[in-house]
């Protein structure tokens, strides 16, 4: 297929996935903000959300202080912010429109409808009326987008580039989410001394789990109270947890193999090596060397994979 077409498909699904993850993080922060907590704690939460996406400086320049309402507006409606939900949905739709002929009619109409509806909802003030419902809607449109492509598209290159975009973005987003949440907690990783701090931790760990729809999964898998190292284990190393780093990398490697070309061997090797680190890694080892260091390195490697994929497949070669 055309390199340009592959590029648009790859970015269409990346932006769709990004919109979903942004909605997930905002939703959890919004829910948490309804709990009784100090202003300082709430502030840490919102600030963490901005730093996940490396948007803190842009926010500060435009809005100044961290005010929950402003952060939500910035991350949902602000068209100047390229990572806001509306910007992601627009970018996903523009990429889809550029290659609408390579998508099935249903897949294209889903993207287009999502964008038209999002614009209408924001214009009509539906987001302000019920933020939680809006976030749910964004998540479900993303589910729908994935489901429609899986349910209607021929499993050719177009399909594999879409999948590649989805899972590379998801690996990135989940890693950032875990990193910032663990990082934000200044309490010692192995538990807080006071009972109040323990309670505070519980809400934080469970909010991480909820943001990736993993709260019930945690209970089912570990049959245990919420413990930070198990949360990390679930979101990093479990292959059967659909939003974990491990599960995302399985899909990246699988779809990369399907589109391999003459120059992609090194990219595949690196993706395979990253997957192997997750397959054979242990959470106690990761924690011993430091979670933040591990995740920072992981993000660098995912970022590098993205650039290599661009170079191998998406940027037209001149020879």
């Amino acid at each position, binding site marked *: *297929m*055309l*390199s*340009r*077409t*592959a590029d648009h498909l790859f970015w269409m699904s990346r932006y769709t996935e990004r919109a979903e993850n942004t909605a997930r993080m905002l939703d959890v922060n919004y829910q948490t903000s309804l709990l009784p907590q100090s202003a300082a704690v709430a502030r840490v939460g919102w600030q963490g959300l901005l730093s996940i996406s490396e948007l803190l400086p842009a926010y500060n320049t435009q809005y100044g202080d961290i005010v929950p309402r402003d952060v939500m507006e910035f991350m949902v409606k602000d*068209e100047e912010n390229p990572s806001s939900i509306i910007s992601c949905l627009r970018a996903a739709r*523009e990429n889809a*429109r*550029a*290659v*609408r*002929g*390579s998508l099935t*009619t249903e897949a*294209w*109409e889903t993207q*287009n*409808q999502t964008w*038209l509806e999002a*614009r209408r909802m924001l*214009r009509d003030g539906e987001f302000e009326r019920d933020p939680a419902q809006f976030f749910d809607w964004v998540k479900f449109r993303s589910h729908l987008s994935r489901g429609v492509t899986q349910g209607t598209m021929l499993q050719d*290159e177009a399909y594999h*580039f879409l999948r590649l975009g989805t899972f590379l973005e998801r690996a990135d987003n989940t890693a950032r989410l875990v990193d910032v949440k663990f990082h934000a907690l200044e309490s010692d990783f192995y538990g807080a001394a006071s009972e109040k701090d323990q309670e505070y931790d519980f809400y934080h760990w469970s909010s991480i789990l909820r943001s990736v729809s993993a709260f019930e999964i945690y209970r089912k898998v570990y049959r245990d109270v919420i413990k930070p190292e198990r949360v990390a284990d679930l979101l990093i190393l479990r292959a059967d947890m659909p939003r974990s780093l491990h599960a995302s990398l399985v899909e990246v490697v699988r779809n990369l193999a399907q*589109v391999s*070309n*003459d120059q992609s061997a090194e990219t595949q090797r690196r993706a395979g090596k990253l997957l192997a680190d997750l397959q054979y890694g242990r959470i106690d080892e990761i924690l011993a060397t430091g979670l933040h260091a591990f995740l920072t390195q992981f993000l660098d490697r995912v970022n590098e994979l993205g650039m290599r994929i661009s170079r191998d*497949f*998406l940027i*037209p*070669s*001149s*020879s």
Partner: protein
Amino acid sequence: MLKFDEMYTQLPIEGSDIREHYKAYGQWLARQPGASMRARREEAEMIFRRVGITFAVYGAKDEDGSGTERLIPFDLIPRIIPAHEWRSMEKGLVQRVTALNRFIHDVYHGQEIIKAGIVPAEQIMNNAQFRPEMMGVDVPNQIYSQISGIDIVRAPDAKGNGEYYVLEDNLRVPSGVSYMLENRKMMMRLFPDLFSQNRVAPVAHYPDLLLETLRASAPPATAEPTVVVLTPGMYNSAYFEHAFLAQQMGVELVEGQDLLVKDDFVWMRTTRGLRKVDVIYRRVDDDFLDPEVFRPNSTLGCAGLMRAYKAGNVAICNSVGTGVADDKSIYPYVPKMIEFYLGEKPILNNVPTYMCRNKDDLSYVLANLKDLVVKEVHGAGGYGMLVGPAATKAEIEDFRKAVEANPSGYIAQPTLSLSSCPTFVESGIAPRHIDLRPFVLSGKEVQMVPGGLTRVALKEGSLVVNSSQGGGTKDTWILEDDASPAPAVASQSQKQSA
């Protein structure tokens, strides 16, 4: 002025009869409550938006200032053409397009028509659309215009009977066929019962015929030709159509940046390296096709394309230089071309045309501006034209100056009383003026699907049907036979007795 309506025997419609071929539809329409038609119209608009059947208006912004995508208004009431009229129109179209292709070949080869004194040499050689680069270039099957959009109007003759006239030939990159197809799909979705009551000829196989035509145009040595559609990109006003046709034919939609010429062959950049391209259905104007030959700053085309084309290694459809035959200054000669190349009498009428380059014509035109339609020879899309009877004094005077300054840049025609067709407008159902653009495909043979795009001028009394000027579209029904339509079938099938 005499008026002709497609559906009613006279206007205004009070006390008028419904024409024979509209009877079944007219009875059906009379039974439809206004509210249900309005609901259908809203449904249609919603679906068109979701499907993204939009066009871009250059320099326009939509209501929240963020985009330029507009819907072309779609009218629910079809334009119906009886079988015998279509049969004759089809013959006329085959004849006309065959002659036009012969003419283009002649222009770029022996120029027999000039030698015969039928078309003056300067009309061709001084025409901005004449491409000297094409002189002596041989193209497969000697076909230059594979896809031709012929604009046809109906107007009353002296007795008030409808008569078809060709208004304009479009041989460069005619657009609108996707609306013909989508309008039919929409009608079948909104009113399935209508299609069981009326024998409407199907049009959905157009992409198949188009692909067959394009493959037939491939360089002779290609066994399995790779066909692509070349688009200027998603911000072009007809982008939807480009993407739609590529998808329907199952071929790649490419932009200039995806193409590359190497060793006089054309290649596209794919995820698995370069792949040879044999046929380009281009939706980019000549001027932008190849910066080596035409506009040097164009990024919409591909450098070297003309080299590959002249070497016979790639087909460009429509060919380069077809504009020399669809220019308004060449239009008046088409009937003579038909006689010259085919030795036949033209089946379709031309509109009588005054060429301001001729002294006599010019003085007539200047004396009668208020009654004439004056058009810029190179204008398109309803821009650069004066509709005398609808123009203000100031507009007429402006045009007079323009025509006097550059007479050969203008032609004029009598103001035709375009036929009208009942149209669903805010105030209810009212007659609005329409035209018709059938799409004629020339490959191994000249063929077309029975139908075309009917455009409708939604403003009361307006004669301008272009979408950029507030025009809409209608579904176009060619009836399969002239026999009285099948009796209305009950919407539920009969229960079978055991």
